[in-house]
């Protein structure tokens, strides 16, 4: 019976995942439990204050990057000389080993124009309005192999199907409520109304490119491309097609105020919904456990839809021309793109699509050594399409509640980065500043780029990380009211005996 439940949960998660680009809040935020934004890790967590008000626009500034392309092997030292992808001395094997089928590059930005919360009799109400942008690009390994091999050799067989572009811009209106069930159990929920503003999503099943010898004469080659996939776009663009219905141009809209209002602020054609649910259980004064599952939801994209579907093969045996004059050759090359579009049966449609937010499961435990020092552990599992990513984090936290809260932690990502994170919250009067960052690059160097075509003037970039796998940072300003504890539960003195 348990297994059935488990299977059902996993299946539900995968259905909700879809194609997602997953913004992830810093794990360091989890340990800053007097910062209101920590409830974005677990909705049951509430700040130790009667109420708070995020300074508009700068209460939750978040940026993150996640990539496997900027690893330590992107710059290699060979025979005393530093080289990168374009050099004949560069060894691609470590890069291939790192990226697998595709190199991924994802970036996230978040800003919250409005955020506030206040405690009720037993519960804590919160509201936030957040603008979120997530982008992700997957570059197939075989694209690098073209660079590696200096082009396309006869016999090349490239699988470009891992190519993907996924991005979405949406607005999140989150209504939160955290309720204390018992003296040691608090549960919380965030109900999030989502307003999709723009998105692009690729769904490529097949994208093969092969270069073969001509059957009759091996002096000649032909290139064969097989493509099966769809690109979905929800954005205010106009697509024009030729007389055969094959798309041939895209026009972007005017950026006047009316368009911005219509397609941005008041665009309600792409609705979505998501929930975060979580619980915090204080086993005793020393031990506290928590669990949360966040971003369980999706956006259904229905407005300003354009989809481009291709399903076919194009065999390239050279540009077809009918004469050797310049006009004919130009016409031949001009017609090449049309030939490709026709061969792969490129069609334009208006298919709707869904995107998920990337559900995340947080499991955490904190051991309070005393009132101001604790150690903790946190696990985050991020569910992606047919995949998941696992991170483990351990921390040491110093919590001088009146003024300062800090955390230093270390994250181990399975098949990813292993490095430290930091968190800091400072309060003076009602004003609170906080900063939380994971995956801090601890090894750095000065990178000097010499471009001989520009006269050889070196360009120095100091403190360049030796590698960047993950990095995220969040900071902001809050106004905290009644910061010494809840109305019904005064704050303990941090300096009293434990």
């Amino acid at each position, binding site marked *: 019976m348990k297994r059935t439940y488990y299977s059902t949960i996993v299946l539900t998660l995968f259905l909700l995942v879809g194609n997602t680009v997953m913004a992830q809040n810093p794990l360091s935020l989890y340990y800053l439990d007097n910062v209101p934004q920590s409830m974005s890790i677990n909705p049951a967590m509430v700040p130790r204050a009667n109420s708070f008000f995020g300074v508009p626009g700068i209460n939750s500034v978040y940026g993150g990057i996640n990539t496997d392309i900027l690893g330590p092997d992107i*710059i290699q030292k060979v025979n005393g*000389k*530093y*080289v*990168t992808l*374009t*050099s*004949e001395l*560069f060894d691609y094997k470590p890069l291939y080993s790192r990226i697998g089928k595709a190199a991924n590059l994802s970036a996230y930005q978040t800003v919250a124009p409005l955020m506030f919360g206040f405690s009720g009799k037993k519960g804590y109400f919160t509201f936030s309005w957040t603008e979120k942008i997530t982008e992700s690009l997957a570059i197939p390994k075989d694209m690098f192999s073209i*660079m*590696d*091999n*200096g*082009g*396309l*050799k*006869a016999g090349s067989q490239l699988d470009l199907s891992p190519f993907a572009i996924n991005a979405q811009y949406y607005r999140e209106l989150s209504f939160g409520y955290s309720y204390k069930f018992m003296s040691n159990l608090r549960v919380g929920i965030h109900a999030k109304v989502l307003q999709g503003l723009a998105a692009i999503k690729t769904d490529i099943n097949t994208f093969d490119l092969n*270069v073969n010898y*001509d059957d009759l*004469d091996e*002096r*000649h*080659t*032909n*290139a064969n491309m097989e493509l099966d996939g769809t690109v979905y776009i929800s954005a205010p663009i106009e697509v024009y097609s030729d007389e055969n219905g094959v798309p041939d141009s895209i026009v972007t809209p005017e950026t006047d105020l009316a368009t911005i209002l219509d397609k941005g602020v008041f665009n309600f054609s792409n609705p979505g919904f998501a929930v975060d649910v979580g619980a915090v259980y204080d086993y005793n004064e020393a031990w506290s456990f928590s669990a949360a599952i966040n971003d369980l939801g999706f956006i259904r994209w229905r407005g300003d839809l354009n989809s481009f579907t291709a399903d076919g093969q194009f065999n*390239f*045996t*050279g*540009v*077809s*021309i*009918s*004469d*050797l*004059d310049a006009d*004919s*050759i130009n016409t*031949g090359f001009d017609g090449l793109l049309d030939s490709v579009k026709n061969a792969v049966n490129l069609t334009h449609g208006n298919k709707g699509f869904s995107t998920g937010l990337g559900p995340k499961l947080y499991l955490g435990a904190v051991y309070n050594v005393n009132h*101001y*020092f604790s150690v903790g552990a946190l696990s985050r599992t991020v569910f992606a399409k047919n995949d998941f990513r696992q991170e483990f984090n351990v921390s040491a936290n*110093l919590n001088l509640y009146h003024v300062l809260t800090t955390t*230093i932690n270390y994250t181990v990502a399975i098949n990813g980065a292993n490095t430290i994170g930091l968190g800091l919250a400072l309060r003076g009067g009602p004003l609170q500043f906080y900063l939380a960052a994971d995956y801090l690059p*601890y*090894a*750095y*160097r*000065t*990178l*000097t*780029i*010499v*471009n*001989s*075509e520009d006269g050889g003037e*070196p360009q120095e970039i100091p403190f*360049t990380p*030796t590698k960047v796998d993950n990095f995220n940072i969040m900071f902001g300003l809050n106004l905290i009211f009644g910061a010494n504890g809840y109305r019904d539960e005064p704050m303990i003195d941090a300096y009293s005996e434990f």
Partner: protein
Amino acid sequence: MIKNKGIILILGAVLISTLFGCKKEDVVLTDPQKYTRPLNLALPIFQAKIKAVDLIENLDTTQFIFIDEDSLIHVQIDTAFSAGYEDVIEFDEMALDISHTIAGSKAIEIPFYFADTLPAALIEGQRFDYTTIKTAQMEVKVSAPSGFTGSFKLKFPEIIQKNGDTLIFESDFGQEYNDTRNLEGATLSFFQNASDISSFRIVTEGLADSQGGSSNGALLVSVKMVDFVPNEIFGFFGKMLIIEQKQDMDFDFLGDYDFTDMIDFKDVKLTLGLESYFGIPISLFIDSMLFSNSTTGETVLLKDEIRVGEATYGPPLVPSKDYVDLDLVDAINIGPDNIYYEVNAWANFEGEVLPNGDTVQNFLINDGLGEIEADILIDIPFWFKISNYERTDIIDFDIRDMIEDETTIDYLEELILYFDFNNGFPFSIQAQAYAVNATGDTIENLFDDDQYLWKSPAIDVNGKAVGMENNPVDLSLTYEKVKSMYDNGVKFLHIQTNVSSGGASGTPEIPEFVKLYTSYNLEIKLSVDITGKASTK
């Protein structure tokens, strides 16, 4: 409190030592944007199917191209002249104003009679016998003397109206008489007056009474035939020049190609044709047809004539026609760039009485067909032999502009262009491309010596290429060759080609007469294979 300070100090020390401890060796990246990996590229570039019929459509001189029923391509220059009915006969408005004196008498009516003629022929030596009238209006005005009574008749004995009656106007004296008759369908049998001028007569007769007055009076008669257009007209229309043409035309269908010494055309002719719907003997003279080559100064002068008798009167009207062919092979093979000619056509060139004593009777029928058409057709079928026609084209090829960075060459081991020429045209072309520097020195030869680009398929007995001949050509640019071209500053490619007709199986020194058909094709396929190597620098 002391305990807290200790922890903070320890954390600070860890942080500082971490910062310094994690400072790694500085990195200098030189020209990271510069791609220095060995190139390896094998790709098809283009395949072209060039059809003779498409090449013809692209010519500036398409209007001179003619494709016959066998799809053989010809250049034809067709010049036509014509003469119509109005070039032979001419009628002005025919009008006569006369004042006749009629006698006055106190007692009786006195008859009067006057006869006049109105000339119709305007051209000397031209005689009209009879015509049917297509359109004409006869306007008559008669004014009797004041105080006279009586009547008059105005007769036109040569004009018989459509109803068979002679044309007559009659009336009593009174107010001024005005009348107009439509003569459509009428006939006019011309009266030859004393001067042998074709005319028609006007007879004025009647009775006049002066009503007691004794003085004479003036009877004013005005006759005008307007809009006169004959339908059929017979007579002898005189010896006259009816077409006179002089033309000086550039003849540049061979363009800038100086083939003169290497090309021989076959079966080139000029056809002079004449078709006449005139009932008149016509003689057409090419008084001068001069082909000239301004480069070589060579000229060829041709003269000829053609004569046809009168058409056969119908219905149906059967035109007389004839043509004559002139052999133009000598004229065309000088490679003319200009043709000048003078052409004249005469009617009744030998007069009314022929040398054999026969008398010529002319007629013209004004039904839209009654024309003479003379035609000069120069027909040059593409049936020729070309022997080792050699030309050199110069192409800008500044290798230092194309390869900005010399070190790029270091990564090239070899670039091979694989051409396949599958040729259906009856020509063999040998080519050599010389890479030449600014001072004209040849740095490299790109092809092997005596390299064929195209080879002619076999030529059948009719001069037609049979099937296609495939010729693979590999153009190899090794590192050494490209380096040499770069180091020596190659700026131009001199493409030298040698064209011969036929010469299948690689024997262009024995050119054959070949015909050029629209069905010929040339297929070209090009692939590139670039092999790179690690730079030695």
